[in-house]
């Protein structure tokens, strides 16, 4: 089959690789009909995440048709159309029983689990196409993909619903939803969102659905800020204004009740702390550049909620622990418990309560995936979301 494979920093290629096969009883094989490039794929593309190996197949946002089902799976049938959560969860362990699917104890192969146990204290769960820290599972930017524990994750999509309306159930829609949920929004709340990429945009929409009075979006790409405005947010361009002062003034001196960091470890901007982080990251002194997160913690009102859907992987420098403690902030983080939200969000999509396609800017055949990565990386203003279709004819 054809698949997008990683070979090094800014080196991804569409190659012919062996077809996946059923390895365990609860597996299924999916023929991918639509898959997307995620912002966290860019962290891999930029080689910010360790444990990548040459030839790894990327992609953790995908959907398709079930073409083969293992003997231990009584839920899926060949021919089902499914969206697959990027988090692989067994459905049986302590964490899955508590709907903390992204903490599943059993989906990361035992040998891979050592690394994250050393890094984080306990082993992390498995995920598709996201380095060997999370299991080294081949991803979905491919014609076919093997889905472990396929009786738990994949959600069956009714006929007649276009792929693009439901594709983002795989990651960014529930991620934006959980980011807003982590703010525990109350009547009258003002929510500020850093980063108007796909997760930030879905967090804005979700915050409104969950009852936010106002949402203020922070970014510096004019087109992305336009999309945030289209979703109803007020916008702040950090190239033009002092973000913290702007947020303080826009909230009558109180500050936003909740702040969402939808940026993560490769924060942009030219402030002194960010330049220092960049220099340290370049020589390996730190892994994560938390400029946005520092601003989030300072801007949030006293006693407010900080929600971090943005991806961090290792150690950060100059973390404002004093502000975090003295202000009594509540922090909620984590990879998304996708399976927890699938049914609810699918229902909301079918009832037209959520707009899931407004952020798609590019549609490319899988064969042009490498080009998709390049433009998503280099033209962030206009390239907001790239959807790849295996089998789609070449376009230029």
């Amino acid at each position: 089959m054809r698949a997008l494979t990683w070979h090094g920093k800014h080196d991804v290629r569409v190659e012919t690789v062996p077809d996946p096969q059923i390895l365990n009883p609860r597996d299924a094989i999916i023929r991918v009909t639509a898959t997307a490039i995620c912002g966290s794929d860019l962290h891999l593309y930029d080689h910010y995440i360790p444990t990548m190996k040459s030839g790894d197949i990327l992609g953790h946002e995908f959907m398709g048709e079930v073409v083969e089902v293992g003997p231990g799976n009584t839920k899926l049938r060949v021919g089902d159309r499914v969206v697959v959560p990027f988090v692989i969860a067994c459905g049986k362990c302590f964490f899955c029983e508590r709907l903390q699917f992204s903490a599943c104890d059993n989906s990361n192969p035992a040998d891979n689990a050592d690394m994250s146990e050393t890094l984080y204290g306990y082993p992390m769960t498995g995920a598709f196409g996201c380095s060997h820290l999370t299991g080294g599972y081949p991803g979905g930017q491919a014609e076919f993909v093997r889905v472990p524990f396929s009786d738990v994750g994949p959600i069956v999509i009714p006929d007649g619903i276009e792929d693009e309306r439901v594709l983002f159930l795989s990651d960014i829609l529930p991620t934006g939803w959980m980011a807003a949920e982590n703010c525990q929004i109350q009547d009258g709340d003002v929510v500020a969102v850093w980063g108007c990429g796909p997760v930030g945009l879905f967090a804005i929409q979700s915050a409104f659905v969950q009852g936010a009075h106002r949402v203020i979006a922070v970014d510096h790409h004019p087109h992305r800020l336009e999309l945030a405005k289209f979703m109803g947010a007020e916008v702040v361009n950090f190239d033009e204004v002092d973000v913290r002062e702007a947020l303080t003034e826009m909230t009558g001196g109180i500050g936003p009740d909740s702040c969402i960091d939808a940026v993560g470890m490769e924060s942009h901007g030219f402030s002194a702390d960010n330049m220092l982080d960049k220099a340290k990251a370049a020589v390996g002194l730190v892994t994560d550049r938390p400029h946005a997160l520092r601003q989030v913690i300072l801007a949030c009102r006293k006693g407010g909620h900080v929600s971090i859907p943005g991806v961090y992987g290792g150690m950060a420098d100059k973390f404002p622990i004093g502000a975090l403690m003295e202000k009594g902030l509540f922090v909620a983080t984590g990879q998304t418990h996708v399976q927890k939200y699938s049914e609810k969000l699918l229902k909301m999509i079918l009832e037209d309560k959520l707009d899931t396609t407004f952020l798609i800017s590019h549609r490319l055949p899988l064969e042009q995936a490498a080009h998709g990565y390049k433009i998503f990386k280099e033209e962030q203003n206009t390239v907001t979301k790239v959807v790849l279709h295996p089998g789609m004819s070449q376009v230029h």
Partner: protein
Amino acid sequence: MAEKISHTQYGDAPLSTAHNVDDDGINAEGLEAHSGDRLVSRSITINAPRQALYEFWRDLRNLPRFMENIRSISVSDNNRSHWVVDAPGGRQIEWDSMLIDDQPGSLLAWESAEGASVRNNGRIEFKDSTNGRGTVVTATIVYDPPAGNIGRMVAKLFEKEPQIQVRRDLRRFKQLMETGEVATSSPPNPQPKA
């Protein structure tokens, strides 16, 4: 008993987490140790009844399903088993193991028979979680770090990272017991073991 250790020396923490573990400490645990012996111990919580876990483990032929490097385990009689393990460089190590304690539903203890290349003894304990989270399984192994040429080879297998080996095996045991399968992300070896 992983949770009951010399309270004066280690507080309530298990012996295996102490900075220094000597044979006196191990003997106080009811395990046999000589000067220089090493201790490895690890606990894992499994969301399954302890009787079922015990019974699966008690049938030693099941162990290769989740233990790495084991080529075969043959049971000679109720208390004696023969273990063959793949070692680095395509070699194999064999020894006999004697079951010395068997408390159905709660404990299995063994020691290596006379002449084993790595003298070892240990136990697997199955206890109900006190807060309703299934069964706490604790594997404890005491072994004599081998010397000499074969010792160095054996050491590669057992001594270098025994802690890692034990925790990986327990993770796979948990996966198999909770989900019915051992998680893997790579196709099987084209030449599977016999």
